């Protein structure tokens, strides 16, 4: 991990609230894996002060670029939207632990809410390269916010949508959908990001179906280097509760261990 000024090659609005940034990562000498993240400086001055964490959305190993998909939320992401192609953005990483994709898995389930899809899309890309079939449930406020569906389909994933707008995204509806999928498809592992409620649901269903599951967590960060202990979450290990760092021990954790 180190901090590198990377040239922005594209930074475009993709829906009302979401943007997509592509950077030239040819200076990066480290391997990047789905589930990992980078800390971006949003601008060149001290306001906003702290870096913001963003997951890897796409890794283009051949052309040596990285892509981020981001939700415009507050000062930092607003400033990020002002970055023009040709400008440099300071990128620190790669950080954190990646998803684990085991060779024997043939079909995996992805359950994403909102911008949580960013990190699962990177995983879908990896899965496609390994010949693993991905089945994705995407949940969003509106149809307009359903991101990356085409990207996922491009990777050969089967994609299902639920939205608040259409009243299809509440937990009980998603439960029925998930139970159907788990009955019909030969799903061997599940992955989730972006919603506490959906993660709780998946935690329960994965346990009853005996499927291993992983979650990518988000927490406010100070250093992202494991030194400040800002970004903690609780995990259960050997019957004991442990407070661990999302930036270091995570952001990907075995779902059954995480206290949601």
């Amino acid at each position, binding site marked *: 991990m180190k901090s590198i000024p990377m040239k922005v090659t594209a930074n475009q609005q993709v829906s009302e609230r979401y943007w997509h940034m592509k950077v030239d990562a040819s200076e990066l000498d480290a391997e990047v894996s789905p589930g990992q993240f980078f800390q971006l400086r949003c601008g060149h001055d001290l306001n906003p*002060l702290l870096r913001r964490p963003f997951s890897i959305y796409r890794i283009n190993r051949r052309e040596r670029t990285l892509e981020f998909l981001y939700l415009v939320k507050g000062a930092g992401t607003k400033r990020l939207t002002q970055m023009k192609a040709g400008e440099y953005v300071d990128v620190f990483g790669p950080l954190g632990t990646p998803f684990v994709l085991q060779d024997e898995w043939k079909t995996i389930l992805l359950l994403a809410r909102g911008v949580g899809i960013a990190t699962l899309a990177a995983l879908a890309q990896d899965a496609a390269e390994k010949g693993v079939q991905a089945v994705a449930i995407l949940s969003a406020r509106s149809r307009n916010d359903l991101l990356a569906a085409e990207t996922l389909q491009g990777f050969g994933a089967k994609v299902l949508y639920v939205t608040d707008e259409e009243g299809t995204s509440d937990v009980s509806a998603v439960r029925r959908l998930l139970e159907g999928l788990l009955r019909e498809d030969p799903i061997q592992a599940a992955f989730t990001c972006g919603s506490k409620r959906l993660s709780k649901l998946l935690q329960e269903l994965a346990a009853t179906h005996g499927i291993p599951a992983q979650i990518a967590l988000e927490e406010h960060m100070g250093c992202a280097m494991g*030194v*400040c202990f800002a970004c903690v979450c609780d995990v259960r290990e050997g019957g004991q509760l442990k407070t661990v760092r999302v930036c270091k021990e995570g952001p990907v954790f075995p779902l059954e261990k995480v206290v949601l």
Partner: protein
Amino acid sequence: MMADELNLQVNIGSLTLPCPIMPASGAFGEDMEAIIDFNRLGAVVPKSITKHPRKGNATPRVCETPSGMINSIGIQSKGIEYYMEHVIPYYRRYQVPLISSISAESIEEFAEMSAIIAGAKEVAALELNISCPNLKGNGAAFGMDAQATRDLIREVRQVTKKPLIAKLTPNVTSIQEIALAAEEGGADGLNVANTILAMAIDIHSRKPRIGNVLGGLSGPAVKPIIVRMIYQVHQVTSLPIIGCGGVMNGEDALEMILAGATAVQVGTASFVQPTAMLDILEEIKQYMMQYGIADIQSLVGQVVTGKHNEGES
């Protein structure tokens, strides 16, 4: 003047630091080894240690405010046994002095922990965190009371001859009074200062933006307050001062040195730029070369406070 002719060495009591830039406790740790060479720092200062393991506070533990951040980590800690067995031995591989930051719940506990930690030969000095705003009710800390500060340092002084640095809290009416109390208690140096008690509210959810409601403000937003405090403390005591709060670059560090700091700690800046401490050191060297200053100590407290328009007609 060449860069290698510059003397950057400074002293805090009997402790000699190869250079005046070191990390601030809580914003530094072993994991940064991948990013910077610790041997180029003035000292290493791991996170404050408590006697017993502590879970720390509720999340969110940090939030950003204009040019600053508020934190309420609540000293998540593995306890003194882990510290003695793992943390202190870890820093053996570095040549720079190890300053151990101690946080305790009572004067007796401060003395007890100091005796144990100072007993380790690798520990060069103790920094007594008498200022953490997160430990006691509503952000109260030992360092808010002159008598408690004096008694605390006096007790710890009994158990070790190693240099004692009192990390003061800025959350007081008179920082000079507390600084004098620490000097009377027998401190060898003063850290000015810990974070400033602060609060931020999300107007949409109407909730505090920090899980623990109150937290400590750090970063560029606090620097002018800290510079003022360094200046005030330097006026009343002869103890060496470690400036701490909002240093982002070499200019900020030099400002603190001119106000009276002998050394400078860097916290939040390392989150923004992981190599900040080394960048700051380089900028200080550049400044020294620019003005032909051979010895960094000759700058300490050299702020010129005469009339601004002196010499003009």
